[in-house]
């Protein structure tokens, strides 16, 4: 353990600083809107971390992960509504269902590569939306309301104040980051990167590529499902329109890509930046309908154009080193 900390000093330093900032946020941030945005950012962070395993590390760009988000959210909603079950239990059930469905869908889907995988995953999520819309047992188009006034907030995860829920999410994100960090430099992480780099070559190096792609897909589905299970009690309401719109899956992919694909911290950075841009654009440009999306789109285009390796690359050691060297060279030139 001590060894691991020593080797990754920068990471753990950043980790502790972020946690420290997190601890004081509820005390400093007074606006409900800002707090709401921060909570949403944490939920998006979980999704980004999850998607990153299949999309970022293994390089199989899924555009259908909203499906698992919806499964997680619906499982919690229905369990609470019909069986009085706490999300503490039903989130595990949601993850199990997601894992099973990811396994069944992954069998045919993961045989596809590149754009074909992307389109097929998108089609699956769209099918799911139609199913959720038309299944009376799942609430149909009206969805499921499950505002809980009977149980304690720690049972229903429906907190009257946002800060308690924020702390809960902070702990979960912090744990997931540790998981991602561990897997990043594990056999699993290296294998996924090898698959992304060159599948034929990976196979000839002894990597059972179908197996590892499947494991990555299931893991990512489970984590995204967890995000859904946490989002549901936050809004106490699930319906197909908010959980499964066409752009939801793209957004999940976007937070990881914007932040830094295949990196540990990237998806979290991406989640915060994207959520803040999206929420504040909506609030600021509320008088002109659609303008927020235009602004959002333009910002996304600029990030992709000028920071193609993701926002996290701005902080990477190599880049910082380069800039330092450039600055030094400039100052030396000045002296001469």
């Amino acid at each position, binding site marked *: 353990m001590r060894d691991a900390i020593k080797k990754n000093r920068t990471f753990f330093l950043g980790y502790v600083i972020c946690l420290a900032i997190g601890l004081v946020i509820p005390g400093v941030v007074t606006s409900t809107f800002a707090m709401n945005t921060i909570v949403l950012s944490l939920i998006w962070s979980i999704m980004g971390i999850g998607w990153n395993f299949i999309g970022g590390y293994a390089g199989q760009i899924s555009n259908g992960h909203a499906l698992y988000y919806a499964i997680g959210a619906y499982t919690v909603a229905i369990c609470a509504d019909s069986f009085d079950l706490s999300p503490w239990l039903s989130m595990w059930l949601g993850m199990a269902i997601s894992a099973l469905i990811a396994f069944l869908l992954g069998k045919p889907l993961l045989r596809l590569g590149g754009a074909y995988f992307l389109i097929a995953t998108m089609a699956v999520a769209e099918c799911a939306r139609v199913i959720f819309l038309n299944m009376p047992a799942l609430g149909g188009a009206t969805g499921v309301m499950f505002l809980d006034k009977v149980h304690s907030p720690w049972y229903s995860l429906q907190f009257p104040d946002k800060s308690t829920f924020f702390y809960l999410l902070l702990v979960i994100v912090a744990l997931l980051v540790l998981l991602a960090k561990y897997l990043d430099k594990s056999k699993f992480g290296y294998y996924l990167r090898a698959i992304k780099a060159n599948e034929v070559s990976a196979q*000839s190096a002894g*990597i059972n590529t179908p197996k590892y792609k499947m494991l990555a897909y299931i893991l990512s589905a489970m984590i995204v499902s967890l995000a859904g299970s946490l989002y549901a009690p936050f809004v106490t309401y699930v319906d197909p329109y908010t959980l499964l719109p066409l752009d939801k899956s793209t957004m999940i992919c976007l937070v990881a890509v914007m932040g830094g694909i295949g990196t540990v911290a990237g998806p979290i950075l991406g989640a915060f930046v994207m959520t803040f841009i999206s929420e504040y654009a909506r609030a600021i440009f509320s008088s002109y309908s659609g303008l927020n999306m235009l602004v959002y789109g333009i910002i996304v285009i600029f990030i992709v154009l000028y920071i193609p390796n993701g926002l996290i690359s701005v902080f990477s050691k190599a880049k910082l080193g380069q800039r330092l060297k450039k600055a030094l060279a400039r100052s030396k030139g000045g002296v001469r």
Partner: protein
Amino acid sequence: MDSILQIVEATKSFGGLVANSGITFDVPRHSIVGIVGPNGAGKTTLFNSLSGVHPLTSGKVIFDGTDITRAKAYDICAMGMGRTFQIPQSLNEMTVWENVLVACLCKHKMGQARERADQVLEEMGLYDFRDAPAGTLNVVQKKRLEIARAVATDPKLLLLDETMAGLTGIERKEASQLIRQLNQKGITILMIEHVMEIVMNVSDKVVVLNGGKLLMEGTPEEVSVDEEVISAYLGGTTW
């Protein structure tokens, strides 16, 4: 003689094109066997069939006593057959060390694999490029990395696909020394090579393919004086 690899009536066709037809030969354990033949003779296709990139249409491949005709590439690798690709297939976004590490993980746990990766880089003379992204290497270095990755899987049999092509005289000498060294460590080597002087110098046995068929097999001396072989190389019809 004990053979590590037996190829029996290997035939591979892609639609109407028959790339390999009825090829049969053995690779004796601990030997160096060279495969030669003009362009399009079906050498790389045969390698792909042996290493599980694509299965044979008909025929059999027996590796170390096990039928691997229909086995997957990763299983074949785990059984102890390593290969290189004619066009280096390095994992370009990963560092040289990570490239080798991934291959080491085939047989070792993480901790051991890290050490083994460094050791392989040292042996292959790639240690100076340890932390460079593989994509930044030049062709000669990439070919070395290709061999390093194959060696890192601790193979019993190593398939080398034109590792000499594009190398200068001195580099070739180094490379053929390397092949001898690997062989002395007990690794059987089956290599495709266009550079005749290397094949004739290094190999214990030479197999000549032409037009997808086995033209002949024998010692380098036997092969080099065979008239059919000479005509295949110096021109004449291939079918």
